[in-house]
């Protein structure tokens, strides 16, 4: 531990200017000779970010009806506090948190509650949702909330305020943000890592947020620093967004312990574990939390919303979504009310031909929807529409594993996907976890991406993990 602190100190020294020339070199030379920090292995999929990276965030009209699932986050679903037929104002709470690990919902538009019932989700099973019919004639001004100064609030109050705002990880994790700010007893957060990597192909919403909502983002970082009592914040940004890094560096007030650092553009650089490894050279232990190494990770979108919502005591009602992909005619970045059906979004941007898969999130880890009635929820960073027969998406013949070792060179956590794949086929699910650390796999998809035999490794691992989870649950029930 002492050693780790020493390492951190020396890194801090570089950042804060004891070696000022290093810093100047960093911003002067653009990565021709210089290799930015990164993690081991990983892949370099085609980014396709040029489709939307230059497009400012725009608003779209409201859909006729919004569908707000009660569970858009990890934890317990929210409990509705409105009745069918009740009129609500944009920003008004419509469901409350059920537990510490849960968040409330707010009305994304002024309108009337049409129904509370089942709605399709990207995950598959239908879940309870509030159907809100939008009053198109209404001004849609957020009339809720009052001004306050988060700078003077106590850490505990801020954490409560973050929960009241309904904030979850907007990068895709959807883990309630206030829970992350409240580390388990005995854990101290020393560093706040702000995730601006956006390593998924096509997605550019975080890029635009860093450029356009810089003040809100910095406000959010300050609030999070105060709540977590972290000593410093590091904004990690992939080096394909050097403009965002330069922009942030110019705006960060000198008196704050906030730095912006470039990391190498490589998938999955934006995964928490990988970003912590790249920036701090720390590894989250198996089954542990980032708090175990003294780190809390927040997405730039989450903190920008935090910086906007908390000073006004408002709730999360909209988010930035990248709508892109080869099947989309006019891709762009849009401020989308939570609950907007995917169909409405695709109608707005137009399609140029047939659509293969429509993915919520990025194409590496996102979910393909089974119905276009699925709404945009808090964690949906992108809607990506792919063409049906594109060479990089088409389903190809599966060959036996030829032991080429590509998957071992791709796996960011150094698993042996080749061996794990064979164990999965042999249904040795227990061995996969006990001897080959399957529990560390976070399903980034690198192994499936590189496999020349087209073996659906990630899918195998997803199934194996769920079977192991069930078996464990079963085992625990038996013991009680």
């Amino acid at each position, binding site marked *: 531990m002492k050693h780790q602190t020493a390492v951190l100190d020396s890194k801090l020294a570089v950042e804060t200017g004891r070696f000022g020339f290093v810093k100047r070199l960093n911003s002067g030379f653009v990565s021709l000779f210089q290799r930015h920090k990164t993690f081991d292995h990983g892949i370099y999929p085609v980014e396709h970010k040029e489709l939307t990276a230059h497009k400012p965030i725009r608003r779209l009209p409201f859909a006729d009806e919004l569908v707000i699932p009660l569970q858009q986050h990890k934890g317990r679903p929210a409990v509705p506090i409105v009745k069918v037929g009740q009129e609500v104002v944009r920003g008004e709470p419509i469901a409350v948190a059920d537990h510490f690990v849960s968040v409330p919902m707010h009305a994304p538009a002024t309108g009337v509650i049409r129904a509370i019932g089942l709605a399709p989700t990207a995950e598959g099973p239908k879940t309870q949702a509030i159907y809100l019919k939008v009053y198109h004639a209404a001004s849609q001004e957020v009339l809720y909330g009052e001004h306050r100064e988060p700078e003077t609030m106590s850490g505990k109050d801020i954490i409560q305020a973050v929960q009241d705002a309904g904030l979850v990880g907007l990068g895709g994790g959807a883990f309630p943000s206030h829970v992350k700010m409240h580390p388990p007893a005995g854990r101290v957060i020393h560093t706040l890592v702000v995730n601006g990597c956006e390593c998924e192909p096509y997605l550019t919403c975080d890029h635009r947020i860093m450029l356009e909502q810089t003040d809100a983002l910095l406000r959010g970082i300050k609030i999070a620093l105060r709540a977590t009592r972290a000593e410093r914040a590091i904004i990690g940004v992939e080096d394909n967004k050097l403009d965002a890094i330069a922009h942030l560096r110019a705006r960060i007030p000198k008196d704050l312990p906030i730095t912006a650092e470039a990391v190498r553009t490589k998938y999955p650089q934006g995964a928490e574990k990988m970003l912590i490894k790249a920036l701090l050279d720390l590894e989250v232990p198996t089954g542990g939390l980032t708090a175990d190494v003294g780190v809390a990770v927040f997405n730039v979108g989450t903190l920008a919303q935090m910086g906007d919502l908390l000073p006004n005591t408002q709730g999360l009602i909209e988010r930035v979504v990248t709508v892109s992909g080869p099947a989309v005619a006019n891709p762009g970045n849009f401020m989308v009310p939570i609950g907007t059906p995917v169909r409405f979004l695709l109608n707005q941007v137009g399609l140029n031909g047939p659509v*293969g898969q429509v993915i919520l999130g990025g194409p590496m880890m996102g979910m393909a929807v089974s119905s276009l009635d699925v709404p945009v929820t808090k964690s949906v960073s992108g809607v990506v529409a792919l063409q049906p027969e594109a060479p990089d998406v088409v389903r190809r013949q599966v060959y036996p594993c030829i032991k080429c070792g590509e998957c*071992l060179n791709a796996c960011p956590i150094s698993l042996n996907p080749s061996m794990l794949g064979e164990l999965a086929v042999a249904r040795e699910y227990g061995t996969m976890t006990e001897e080959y650390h399957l529990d560390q796999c976070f399903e980034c998809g690198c192994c499936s991406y590189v496999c*020349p035999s087209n073996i659906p490794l990630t899918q195998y691992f997803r199934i194996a993990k769920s079977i192991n989870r069930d078996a464990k649950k079963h085992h625990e029930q038996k013991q009680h």
Partner: protein
Amino acid sequence: MDKGIEIRTSPHLKRVVSVEKIMRTVVLALLPICAFAVYQFGLSALLLLATTTGVAIWTEWFFSRLSGKGNTVSDWSVVITGLLLGLTLPPGFPLWMAAVAAFVGVALGKALFGGLGYNVMNPALVGRAFVQAAFPVAITTWTPAFAPGRFAELIPSTLTLPFMQPIPVDTWVAGLQLDGWSGATPLAIQKFQHIEPPLTDAFTGMIAGSAGETSALLILICGLWLAWQRMLDWRIPVSVLAGAALTALPFWLADASHYPSPWFVLSSGGLMLAAWFMASDMVASPVTARGVVIYGLFIGSLTVIIRLFGGLVEGVMYAILIGNAVGPLISSWTQPRVYGTSSRKSQG
């Protein structure tokens, strides 16, 4: 709009490289070597390559039918086996023996284990090892390169009838009236007479030897191209060659009149072809990054040890087969440390 929507699981993107493409690219890289073999040894080499490849394909097709797996010839891996086998045989090798080698290689070396991906050893080398044991004379009978009339007539032994002793080539070779022909490969000359033939000849392939192993330069170029195409793990050939050179070096330094120089070791015999195209066989080599280096060094040094101290003139075939056998063990020793854990898991 909903109609064409497909539900699949992530990742939704895929690198556009498949087994079939890798195998086809390897075949492409082997073609110049085959062409040079034909240019050098004439019709006999052409028939030899056609026989091994044809029989290998037929065997693969036959066993894939038998196992009801559907036709597995289309993955092209068996074409590589056939070509490689042909390239490692002497140009005048009787065709019926070549057919036996191809059949045994694919049947015992591959199909028996369950086909592509399941074989423990390189099928081409299994086939060659079989005929090396079964027909020790035929496999060490060399004929001169660039024989006049090589495109008009066959080497007499090529057309030996099945289950017959190979037709002797001595009188035929004598009839060619070549100066300085000793009937031995540079490797044999070095081993038994301790004379190192000129390096440039061995490097460019102006010598006697197996059909496709003579020109180290051409093999090097083809191998480098394949590595540049990222269809081959360059660490394997590089470490095989390094292992061979480093093992040969101390002996040569100690007694240059008796032991071959590292340069001679690298450019002679089947080492170059084996390093680039056989040791690098993905299926039979270890999967870990550190593992392939250990595997390569092991094969390289074992080759030289067999050459210097074994009864055989060339040892690379057995070195690779032994390397294949210990490959899984090397894999399991060299598993990388998993993120967030302190253990180096030893199962491979």
